[in-house]
């Protein structure tokens, strides 16, 4: 539609996109390899803390961490925020929660989406389990989202 003020103007889509390919290293590489196998893997520090996602070093001491442990796959929501209007880039096309999830056997929490249906279905302490996508490739989106452990 021509502008009513007679001024010349042009509009066009402008997309800024960088598809970064990141080397993940031995520790996160193990985590992503685990996701491809539908397993969740953390690292255990000398003091016995289990870090998920794994860290290459102990955040308390700076010491290298090399012991891997299986965790989850289910866990507990420790904190969350409800997304009422997801954007096109969000993992779910319907309202969902971003949540910090402490997987069983882990001492740290991992961020992921929870498909709780409605905000009233979310709460801190909720037990959740991963919903794997049909074809896993070795990245965080191999987990489509988490969902309440009690079948909905």
């Amino acid at each position: 539609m021509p502008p009513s003020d007679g001024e010349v103007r042009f509009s066009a889509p402008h997309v800024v996109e960088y598809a970064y390919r990141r080397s993940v290293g031995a520790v996160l590489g193990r985590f992503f390899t685990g996701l491809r196998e539908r397993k969740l893997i953390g690292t255990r520090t000398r003091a016995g803390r289990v870090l998920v996602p794994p860290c290459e070093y102990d955040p308390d001491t700076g010491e290298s961490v090399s012991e891997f442990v299986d965790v989850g796959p289910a866990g507990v929501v420790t904190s969350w925020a409800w997304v009422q209007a997801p954007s096109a880039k969000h993992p779910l096309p319907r309202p969902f929660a971003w949540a910090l999830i402490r997987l069983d056997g882990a001492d740290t929490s991992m961020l992921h989406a929870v498909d709780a249906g409605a905000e009233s279905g979310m709460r801190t302490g909720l037990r959740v389990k991963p919903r794997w996508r049909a074809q896993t490739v070795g990245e965080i989106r191999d987990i489509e989202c988490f969902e309440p452990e009690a079948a909905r």
Partner: protein
Amino acid sequence: MSEVEPVKSIVTPTRLEYEYTAVGAQARFLDQIAHGRIIGQRCPQCRKVYVPARGACPRCGVPTAEEVEVAGRGTVTTFCVVRVPSENIHLKLPFVAAHILLDGADIPFFALVGDCDASEVRMGLRVEAVWAPREEWGPTFANIRHFRPTGEPDVDYEKFKEHL
């Protein structure tokens, strides 16, 4: 785990989608380049010519209104020979991205240099615009496919060093 191929890298997409609307000086530039003309604006205070213009002088902070047409030829001030592939750039390697100071302009702009070997591109090289066929012209920089060497003698560094 030892028998499976480990994951060594991941792709992390970063994407921002805008609907960009050009008005004022930018729209005027696009309207004119659709007719094969490259226009800029001259600052009323420092007299510098900006191409493409944004409607104000970034140095003096005053509006620019005087329109100036500049040539489709100019001088390579700096350049980069790109030899590394990128997933979003579909150009044959190597290609040369350059800053080109058009004759009559005081600020270089970014364009490709072609029709010559990458090793021939140098600071001070004289180049001219290679336009797409007229029937393909639209309000876009893409009307200029690239710049190519003119064969004129190189410009001395002292003449363009303030425009780097």
